[in-house]
């Protein structure tokens, strides 16, 4: 299982001081955020869609146990097997047992963050089962021995040249263009789809009334993973269920636009169980693994339970200034960015110790971008409060009290900022303090503020 690593602060500091990473991340998040912005501009009813999606998610959470029972009944009636797993160990054991007992030596995988959370690939490898990622970005990071750095675009931190070098080293084949590299991956994975004994996917949504496991993609690898192997295992966290197809439609009205700027994905698939009599392909066995891993406890929390509305679109990552500065790997957890900070603090508080919640500017861009209206700042502030109450604040008590005083009183705030600007009018001398390399890199790349000290000629005129 992949829990939040304690070295997030040092990894973030290193990442913030890496100008190449900063450049790549700036371009990547601007591109992804731009896709969403353009999609929303073409959507006059975007706010209504967000409201409906938030309501659909809330309806699901409000009836979660009944919906899970309904989903189980319908899938079982269709010939599928539904497994419940309290934690990662149990989920891995279920999937591992299935693979070993069926003589599976190779499993092909669609992109699935929950299987990253489980550490499933390593578990299967320990049983002699190779788990081959087939989403192009996941395949690239798997070859590179890395973890995904973004929920939707796992390899966004790698350049074309990086991928070309990687393919030459690992596949023994040279490609230069994006098309050539994609073709190399397609050719390398084609035989794996045909030879694999098991296909493993995640789940975007599970419709209780229909007994349907729903998946979205653009590449075709998920459909292939569920068409050719004899066994299809779909893994989902327990909150992914929705009541009916109408609520699913509300989610699909926001998921593709907010994730990739699309109206509909290249493939939208409804899996309804194993193949029926007379079918020539599709799985003979269909298994759904429903994972808890701390989420049932989260539903009881009046502030944190809203995290369970998340539909994993990645929109919060694409607008987060911290994520843009340090990238996904710095978070040292399955889920990066604002959603990662919330999940780490809520599901693994002892390991996270509030570190990721404190790595937030509270700008609120994530909440504005969220299609299901999660109030990220409220959640992160609550996680900070709990970390502080548990004695895990990153600031000494006296300094924290001084900050609270300054930020809570306009006169004290004004006095503190005036004093700081007296010492450092351009707000850039701070960067020369030792141990602040990341801040130095950031300030070196930004334009000067144009601020004048309060008593300088021209102060108060022109730019603030």
């Amino acid at each position, binding site marked *: 299982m992949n829990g939040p690593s304690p070295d997030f602060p040092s990894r973030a500091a290193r990442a913030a001081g890496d100008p190449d990473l900063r450049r790549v991340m700036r371009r990547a998040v601007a591109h992804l955020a731009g896709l969403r912005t353009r999609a929303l501009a073409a959507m006059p009813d975007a706010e209504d869609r967000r409201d409906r999606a938030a309501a659909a998610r809330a309806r699901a959470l409000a009836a979660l146990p009944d919906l899970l029972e309904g989903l189980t009944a319908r899938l079982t009636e269709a010939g599928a097997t539904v497994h*419940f797993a*309290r934690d990662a160990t149990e989920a891995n054991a279920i999937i591992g047992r299935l693979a070993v007992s069926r003589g599976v030596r190779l499993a092909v995988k669609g992109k699935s963050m929950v299987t990253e959370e489980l550490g499933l690939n390593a578990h299967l490898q320990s049983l002699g089962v190779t788990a081959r990622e087939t989403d*192009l970005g996941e395949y690239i990071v798997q070859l590179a021995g890395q973890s995904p750095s973004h929920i939707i675009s796992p390899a966004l931190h790698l350049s074309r040249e990086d991928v070309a070098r990687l393919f030459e080293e690992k596949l023994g084949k040279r490609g230069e263009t994006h098309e050539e590299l*994609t073709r190399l991956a397609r050719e390398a994975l084609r035989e794996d789809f045909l030879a694999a004994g098991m296909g493993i996917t995640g789940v975007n949504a599970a419709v209780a009334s229909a007994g349907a496991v729903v998946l979205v993609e653009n590449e075709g690898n998920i459909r292939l993973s569920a068409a050719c192997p004899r066994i299809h295992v779909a893994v989902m966290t327990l909150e992914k269920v929705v009541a009916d197809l109408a609520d699913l439609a509300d989610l*699909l009205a926001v998921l593709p636009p907010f994730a990739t700027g699309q109206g*509909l994905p290249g493939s939208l698939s409804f899996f309804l169980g194993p193949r029926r009599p*007379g079918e*020539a392909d599709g799985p003979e066995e269909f298994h759904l693994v429903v994972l808890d891993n701390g989420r049932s406890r989260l539903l009881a929390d009046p502030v944190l339970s809203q995290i369970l509305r998340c539909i994993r679109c990645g929109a919060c990552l694409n607008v987060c200034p911290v994520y843009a500065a340090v990238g996904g790997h710095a978070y040292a957890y399955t889920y990066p960015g604002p959603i990662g900070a919330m999940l780490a603090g809520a599901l693994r508080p002892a390991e996270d110790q509030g570190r990721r919640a404190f790595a937030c500017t509270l700008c609120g861009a994530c909440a504005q971008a969220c299609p299901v209206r999660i109030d990220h700042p409220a959640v992160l502030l609550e996680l900070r409060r709990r970390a502080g109450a548990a004695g895990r604040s990153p600031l000494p008590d006296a300094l924290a009290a001084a900050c609270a005083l300054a930020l809570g009183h306009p006169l004290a705030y004004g006095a503190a900022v005036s004093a700081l600007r007296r010492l450092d009018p351009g707000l850039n001398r701070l960067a020369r303090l030792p141990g602040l390399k990341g801040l130095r890199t950031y300030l070196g790349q930004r334009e000067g503020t144009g601020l004048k000290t309060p008593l300088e000629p021209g102060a108060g005129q022109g730019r603030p």
Partner: protein
Amino acid sequence: MTSDSRDFILSNLRAALAANPVRVPEARPRAASPPWSGSAQDLARAFEAAGASARVCASPQDLARELVRVAREHGAARAAVWGHPAIAGLGLDRELEQAGVAVVRASGGPDRARACRPSWPGENLSCREAAGADLGLCVADAVLAASGTLVLRSGPGRPRSHALLPPVFVALASPATALADLDGLMPVLDGWIGEKALSGVFCVTGPSATGDIEFVLVRGAHGPPTVVVLVADFPL
């Protein structure tokens, strides 16, 4: 035992909701999906906008000619063809054979599995046959006009792999099955699922694509890079 875990998890969830009931926020209801009243040409434009090639066929003969032309244009020597009444009724498999294209007809029934390696389960022969084909021919059960989406149901004689593995995917589509948008598909889907004989429904919008390397869009990641829709402007 997962049944113990199931009881444990469901019990936890019920206790959680008793302690913290979830409030459902207000939301304006979605407008009903309008009926679609466009033309075959409108559908063709929608498919083109989604990245497919589309041709409107005025008659069965026209459609057969177009299919053969597509096969020749793409140098197809072998086609994987659904066992669908529309394909059989139009004699499309025979037309392809007469044009020199070998036809692999979808066979129902159990795999004639052959073990690739002794310790592995046998591979699916239907998938292997589709992987060796240059063109896959299927029939859309519905189309979504707003997005140029083909809706395919899997079933006996309708292998999933025929729309996935060959590099050229040809779909027959009829305006008679057109729905306005995805919202309009949901009640139809409800009816199909209620028949209980369905293992999968696949909504395909344009060719397979990826932007995973530097966000540069490339067609044909794993599925077909080329999608051709033959829109039948006559009863299929």
